[in-house]
């Protein structure tokens, strides 16, 4: 049973069609990454899945009882709004202190519950957003360029956290990412989007697809080589991520 099934989805933004006839599905436990140039409809796709945008055609079906955790692209907290991390995680309602502590620990920031949201660093803030997405014990985690604004080290450790969350909870992940080296090493499946689905498959298949090369050039061959290399050798996670950042720098 798929967690989420998108069939023949078209989405319009005013008169502009941002997505046309997109179909995809996410199976339990897999990591699926959406790549695509700016304006290719990646964010619209995620927003339609959570119900923030209405399909023009086609439909989005959630498996029965499937819960979704969502980490938005960017969240601006107005400085005039005083709110602690714990209060933020309690919204809209029904979360206990235990839920909050557990989610913060899972997201790797166990000590932040009393901090003011507006005073967090970029990395801390993303982890608090992750904690918020995790608090409902989701079957599917949606991440919209969750590492935007983080440096190499920050984003590498963020993705490591995601990987750990998946191992601990078994949730599936559907994410948008610009960081092709991360995509290629961490995903089970890659969907290349440009208003429509250009190509999809395992990272290796997508990276060699002509549609993908037309969008991203062949420069990412290096990332793919790294992916292969990494999977030929050891499974030490720290070393794994470390190698990636070095290779990219």
């Amino acid at each position, binding site marked *: 049973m798929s967690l989420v099934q998108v069939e023949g989805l078209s989405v319009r933004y005013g008169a502009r069609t941002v997505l046309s006839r997109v179909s995809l599905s996410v199976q339990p436990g897999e990591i699926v990454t959406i790549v695509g140039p700016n304006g290719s409809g990646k964010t619209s796709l995620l*927003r339609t899945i*959570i*119900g*923030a945008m209405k399909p023009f055609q086609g439909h989005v079906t959630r498996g029965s009882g499937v819960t*979704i*955790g*969502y980490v*938005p692209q960017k*969240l601006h*907290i*107005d400085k*005039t*709004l*005083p*709110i*602690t991390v714990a*209060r*933020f995680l309690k*919204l*809209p*309602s029904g979360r206990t202190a235990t839920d909050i502590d557990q989610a913060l620990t899972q997201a790797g920031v166990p000590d932040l519950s009393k901090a*003011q949201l507006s005073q967090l660093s970029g990395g801390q803030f993303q982890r608090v957003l992750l904690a*918020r997405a995790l608090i409902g014990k989701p079957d599917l985690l949606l991440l919209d360029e969750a590492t935007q604004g983080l440096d190499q080290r920050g984003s590498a450790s963020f993705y490591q956290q995601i990987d750990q969350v998946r191992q601990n909870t078994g949730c599936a992940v559907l994410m948008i990412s610009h960081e092709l080296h991360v995509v290629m090493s961490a995903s089970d499946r890659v969907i290349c989007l440009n208003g429509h689905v250009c190509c999809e498959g395992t990272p290796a298949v997508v990276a060699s697809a002509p549609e993908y090369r037309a969008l991203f050039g062949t420069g990412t061959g290096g990332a793919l080589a790294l992916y292969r290399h990494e999977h030929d050798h050891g499974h030490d996670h720290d070393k794994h991520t470390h190698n990636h950042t070095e290779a990219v720098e």
Partner: protein
Amino acid sequence: MFDDFMVRAALAGIGVAIAAAPLGCFVVWRRMAYFGDATAHAAILGVALSLAFSMPIFIGTMAVALLMALTVSVISGRGYAMDTLLGVLAHSALAFGLVAVSFLSGVRIDLMAYLFGDILAVSRGDLSVIWGGAALVVMLTGWRWSALLTSTLNEDLAHASGIDPKREQLVLTFALAITVAVAIKVVGVLLIAAMLIIPAAAARPMSRTPEGMAVAAGIIGMLSAVVGLRAAYVFDTPAGPSIVCVAAIAFLTSSVIGSLISAR
């Protein structure tokens, strides 16, 4: 006790401060200050219409304020430059309202009372309208509090939690219209936005949670009303503006103390 006009005035001011506190916080958090202004300014048109059709002022002002707030809600998010648009709407509503009032021949109305409020002339009837409206606003914002707060933080997060931000926006719009209708007698259309924004802004430096800020705004608003009235009595100054002046002094004090504490 209700026979004393000063007691009635104080109770009216406190009622408005209570309604304005939670709503004012949302106006500040959502950067709707100009939106509040436009809604309040439109109320003068409501006054003219109420008098023309011999309706209770409360009904007329609320209807027009609601209409204005809805218009702005519909227009917003369609790619117009909001500040320009609100500037146009706020001031043309005021101008049309003033012109409309001048057409009312035979009815002698004290325009100043609607522009700057006439808190000392609050009757028992006014008082029940003010407290009824304030209770409605507090109940409305209290009932939707979590949903409102979530959609204020981020609309997509609200959607992901099953909350419709558009519906919450409507709740706020409705509460704003009630507050404007209620506050017109106390501070007048020109200063209603001040009662919304200044106590909330003054409460910000001393608050750590949204709820704390709403309560602090309420206390600051009530104190401003009482102290402002007393000052107006002692110095023989206009009551509505005196209340706003006290609130402004509270804002200044709280900002200075706040920055001293954070600099330490």
